[in-house]
């Protein structure tokens, strides 16, 4: 009986697994192989051992991109997570216009990244863009700058746009988590002022733990896969000051036709993400054993 059921399980899994192996796992392994070769996508790959990796760690652009990814990750773990949590707490009651507010806040999520890049490009436009003209109007002239051309701020300018898109997602995940907490607990915590803060910290936050874990996983993945925004707003420029690993990989593999080199970046990127996700996976394993 038991083995019969196992057979059924494998039978059901065959279709999905075959497809997944063909389109995702196989090509990924192939990429790992390519990372050990010199390959332009046209001639056949030529095996060169670990040369790509060796070169990678000497490439200043790779280092910049890696550091940028880490900056991105740190900003993403703080700003959208906190903002999303606050918004979720505020909107988790029967306030007027509640549904519309929610829809407005997560609406950036549904726009295609190209459109978002376009919109934020105009906000940051140095002459007459929304940000600079607003700053001049309120007398903060000295803050105006070319947000996407100044190598010191460009990365954060892009992160801000990415935050704009990500906050809605985080908010929804937290809202979903809050739904599992009885409303009375929340109300009590919100109204009581100082002791409410304590309640939030000691009661609500722990109860939100499952949602928080998902938020962190999603946020980490998003930070490392950061690509669309960078690609559509600056392509990593000026001179790579806003480059991130996924974009660097894309440019090397597709623009510069260095598939092997791009592949080696992909391998590093995957390992990095895996390292960050592993603590989450450990938890899964632990749960499974229980």
């Amino acid at each position, binding site marked *: 009986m038991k083995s019969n059921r196992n057979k059924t399980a494998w039978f059901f899994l065959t279709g999905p697994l075959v497809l997944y192996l063909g389109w995702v796992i196989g090509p990924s392994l192939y990429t790992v192989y390519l990372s050990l070769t*010199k390959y332009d*996508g*046209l*001639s056949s790959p030529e095996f060169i051992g670990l040369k790509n990796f060796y*070169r990678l760690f000497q490439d*200043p652009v790779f280092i910049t991109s890696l550091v940028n990814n880490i900056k991105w990750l740190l900003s993403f773990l703080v700003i959208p997570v906190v903002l999303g949590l606050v918004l979720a707490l505020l909107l988790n009651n029967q306030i007027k216009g509640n549904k519309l507010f929610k829809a407005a806040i997560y609406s950036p999520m549904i726009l295609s990244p190209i459109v978002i890049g376009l919109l934020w490009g105009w906000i*940051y*436009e*140095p*002459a007459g863009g929304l940000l600079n003209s607003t700053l001049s109007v309120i007398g903060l002239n000295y803050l105006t*700058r*070319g*947000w*996407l*051309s*100044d*190598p010191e701020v460009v990365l954060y300018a892009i992160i801000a746009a990415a935050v704009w898109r990500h906050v809605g997602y985080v908010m929804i995940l937290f809202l979903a988590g809050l739904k599992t907490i009885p409303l009375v607990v929340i109300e009590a915590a919100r109204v009581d002022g100082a002791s409410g803060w304590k309640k939030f910290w000691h009661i609500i936050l722990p109860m939100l733990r499952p949602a928080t874990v998902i938020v962190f996983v999603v946020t980490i993945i998003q930070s490392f896969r950061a690509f669309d925004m960078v690609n559509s707003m*600056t*392509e990593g*420029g*000026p*001179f*790579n000051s806003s480059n991130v690993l996924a974009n660097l990989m894309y*440019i090397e593999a*597709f*623009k*510069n*036709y*260095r598939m092997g080199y791009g592949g080696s970046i992909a391998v590093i990127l995957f390992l990095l993400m895996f390292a960050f996700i592993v603590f989450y996976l450990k938890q899964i394993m632990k749960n499974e054993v229980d």
Partner: protein
Amino acid sequence: MKKSFLSLTLLILLVIGGSAFAETKDVLVVNSYMSDPVPKEALAELVKAFEEANPEIDVQVSTTAHEDFKKALRIWLSSDNPPDVITWFAGNRAKYFIDKGLILEITDVWQEENLDEKFPRAFRSISFVDDEAYFMPNNWYWWSVFYRKSIFEQYGLEEPATWEEFLQVCQTLQDNGVIPITIGTKFRWTAAAWFDYLNLRINGQEFHLRLMEGKVSYNDPRVKQVFTYWRQLLDRGYFLENAAAYSWQEGVRFLANGEAAMYLMGQFILDAVPAEVAADLDFFRFPVIDPTVPLAEDTPTDGYMIPRKAKNPELAKKFLKFLASKEGQLIFIEKTGRIGVNNQIPLDRYTPLTQKGVKMIEATDALAQFYDRDTLPSVADKGMNAFMEFWAYPDRIDLILDNLERESQLIFTE
């Protein structure tokens, strides 16, 4: 749910049925990077004229934006199902694919159409590899410094011919609160134009092309010279501020609204401005720096190729012949203002400004394509980043060039 499933199935059937129906004609698939409105319309008109002359052929044009086209082309060429005709650039970028055996040889088209007679000699060298033709040049345009006539008149300025005169013009404009030179370097190639021209004027075309082929190093003192001249403009603030934040097209705005006076740009700038501004635009040859260096200009040439695995090479050749003919050339140039490669076109078919451009090029000693067409794509990528870094931190130039040299040597020796 069931209903939507049904309608979906119907839709899919309709699409499949629709494409099956279209198969009754010979289909010629043309993939083009002409995504700009004007050239796109021009190609559409060409196709219409070709289809009228050949009613048995159905030409299907697909347009992919320029940057994407460059990436996708490699995929198309390596697929078993490539387009029949593709647009492409003359020079190294074409040779790269020709050397890999991915392009169909079209020497017969050149012979049958007698193109050696119809095209100026210069186009033969960019179309042939080992005495066989692979590339069909179609049109070209010139680069020069475009400027607002009204602003120059207002401050009593003349077209500068030398570097000193050019600096003088810039100074006068700046003193009067006009931005001397507008530029949008977000996509970097506008900065590459400055590098090209300064190098062509200081070191000459021969040196320039050797640099492009990796035979001279970037940290050569002669290359450094280029940046000392460039720096003169940067240090005096002659360029638009925050240039890296603008696309080239956003940079045009400052020219259009009269805040800026000059723009080093290709002829296509005329498509980008409103008609009344275009009427106020004129151009001059990039100023001479060293009079002993022969004059050279960037004249990027665009054309067509046939992938070797194309399904309909005969139709494709027919289309190429039409594009090279006087009739085909006229349709394209009258719409776009670009210059046709076919010398049977009388000069007076061009606008006065284009005529001036043609005459300027005729009085030029040597030609280059453009930075990212003359060198390897990956080197161009590194090079343009280096230019942008120099723009932001001119003091770092020695380090920047050393890095660039190292990177480009790695790529050239790969």
